[in-house]
């Protein structure tokens, strides 16, 4: 029975256009002689998760991508994006854009919370699909290996916003800027529009979330499943910062504000361009 399911799942790869898939198979992902990269990413595993992600990217959310040429074909880079939508689908769609729409596909690596490795199945799926436990050493190693790192400096604060604060940026963390300064890595700002409408939340019951032990407990009148909104993802021009990585928070904060401004601008442009939530 297991073999039957496996062949059925593998059959869905045909839904992805041939040339797109051929480009992905050629992609250099830093795997060793056994087909795994040191973090447990297995390019072969994309056969299983690629088709459903392709469906969400192209058919369900119909993501519109602009400025993809700003993501370099090779070399280390840090993608910094706003975070929204109660469920972190924006990360998946940014990854899909760089994988399916880019002429030379790039594997996006993002950092996941520390408790992900303690969950059965999630720990395995996340590792095989290239997601990495979020520690500073891991981020540094990824960049040393010329990886493309996706970070959401807002963290859970961004994702669990209620709808009245839609498209406001929560306070950015500073870690990504120190990392960029230390490793001399360009930062590519990304503005994601559409995510806030997928599961609008009216209230976040923090006390309940704390009691259950989950990051947030949103009250969502339109149901807990994402609506088929249209995503608009705008990649901005690379920003390169200079300076010392171990400066005071105040000095780092100024540099982070430059990134925040760039992302705000991308979001504002996206909001004025779009004509509705679903098209």
């Amino acid at each position, binding site marked *: 029975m297991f073999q039957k399911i496996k062949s059925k799942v593998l059959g869905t790869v045909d839904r992805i256009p041939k040339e797109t898939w051929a480009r992905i198979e050629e992609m250099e992902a830093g795997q*060793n*002689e*056994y087909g*795994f990269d*040191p*973090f*447990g990413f*297995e390019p072969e595993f994309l056969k299983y998760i690629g088709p459903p992600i392709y469906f969400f990217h192209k058919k369900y959310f119909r993501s519109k991508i602009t400025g993809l040429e700003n993501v370099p074909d090779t070399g280390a880079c840090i993608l910094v994006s706003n975070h929204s939508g109660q469920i972190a689908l924006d990360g998946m769609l940014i990854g899909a854009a760089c994988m399916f729409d880019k002429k030379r596909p790039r594997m996006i690596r993002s950092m996941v919370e*520390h*408790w*992900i*490795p*303690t*969950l*059965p*199945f*999630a*720990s*395995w799926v996340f*590792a*095989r699909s290239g997601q*990495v*436990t979020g*520690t*500073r*050493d*891991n981020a540094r*190693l990824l960049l040393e290996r010329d990886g493309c790192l996706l970070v959401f400096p807002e963290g859970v604060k961004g994702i669990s916003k209620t709808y009245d604060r839609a498209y406001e940026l929560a306070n950015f963390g500073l870690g990504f800027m120190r990392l960029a300064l230390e490793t001399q890595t360009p930062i590519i700002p990304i503005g994601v529009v559409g995510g806030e409408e997928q599961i609008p939340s009216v209230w976040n019951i923090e006390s309940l979330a704390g009691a259950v032990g989950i990051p947030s407990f949103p009250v969502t009148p339109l149901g807990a499943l994402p609506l088929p909104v249209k995503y608009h993802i705008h990649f901005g021009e690379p920003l390169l910062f200079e300076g010392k990585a171990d400066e005071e928070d105040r000095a780092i904060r100024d540099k982070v504000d430059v990134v925040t401004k760039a992302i705000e601008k991308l979001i504002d442009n996206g909001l004025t361009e779009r004509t509705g939530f679903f098209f």
Partner: protein
Amino acid sequence: MKERKKRKQRVIITGIAGRLGLALARRLHRRFDVIGVDRRKVKHLPKDIQFERVDIRRRRFEDVFRREQIDAVVHLNIMHDPRSTDAEHHDFNINGTKKLFELCAEHRVGKVVVLSSANVYGPDPRNPQFLTEDAPLMGGQNFDGIRDLIGLDMFCNTFFWRHPEIETVILRPVHIVGQVNNAPSRFLRLDTPITLLGFDPMLQLIHVEDLVSAFERALIPGIRGVYNIAGPSPVPLSYMLEKLRRKPRPMPEAMVRGLLKMGWAIKVSDWPWPELDHIKYVCMVDDSRAREELGFTHTHEIDDIVREILTRPLK
């Protein structure tokens, strides 16, 4: 005129009766004068090795140092018997090591190489993918059985400043496989190993002969410090089991833990249940320091390890 033959360096190997000790003795005995020490009986030792059957905590052990000038000590005499008590572990491992170091300082032994383990870092979900030698030794947070080894490792660390004239080397190898009788080696030899449903961590393995090479490199004069030792590139546990053509039985973690606890209590199983974390979380090390400073390289790839496990059962 015939030149006088240079005296061979004299090396003590403690714990020579173990499988790693024997492998090391076989490699070293042609180039060094090897003196083996163990409280266990030893079999199949090369003829030119002098063997002393003595507990290193005893007074009679001191005599080995008094008799001849010793150039180096390789300390492998570290007990790990899950069934024995913590007190016995601490007494044998820590007091034994303390005694050994005192003797080395007293008799001006130039080099001490100690076997620790990468397990002292401990598997943990918050671990970075590769732990460097500076990472804290957190192995004891969930597993009491490893605390004496952590204590021993830290005790040996104090020797870098207490006796700077002695070149102390601490090796922390990852899971040793091959002809050794330890948990990872036994686990990979099971036909139907139990795995944890939904967990498949990356593993680092090292073949025992490669570890022996690392010990050889550590004996080179001038080498000192702590070194992580790892073998071929990491692979997931499932990949290893597939290569070995095993039939893993994935089970929910709570069930496996319960079964192991029960099995432990009624003494049908000798697997300490906290060691399950090793097939759940990563505990991998960065061995670049050993590769750069020791000049260590591994020769056994994953395929060689697989072949060895399949063709050579543990005797």
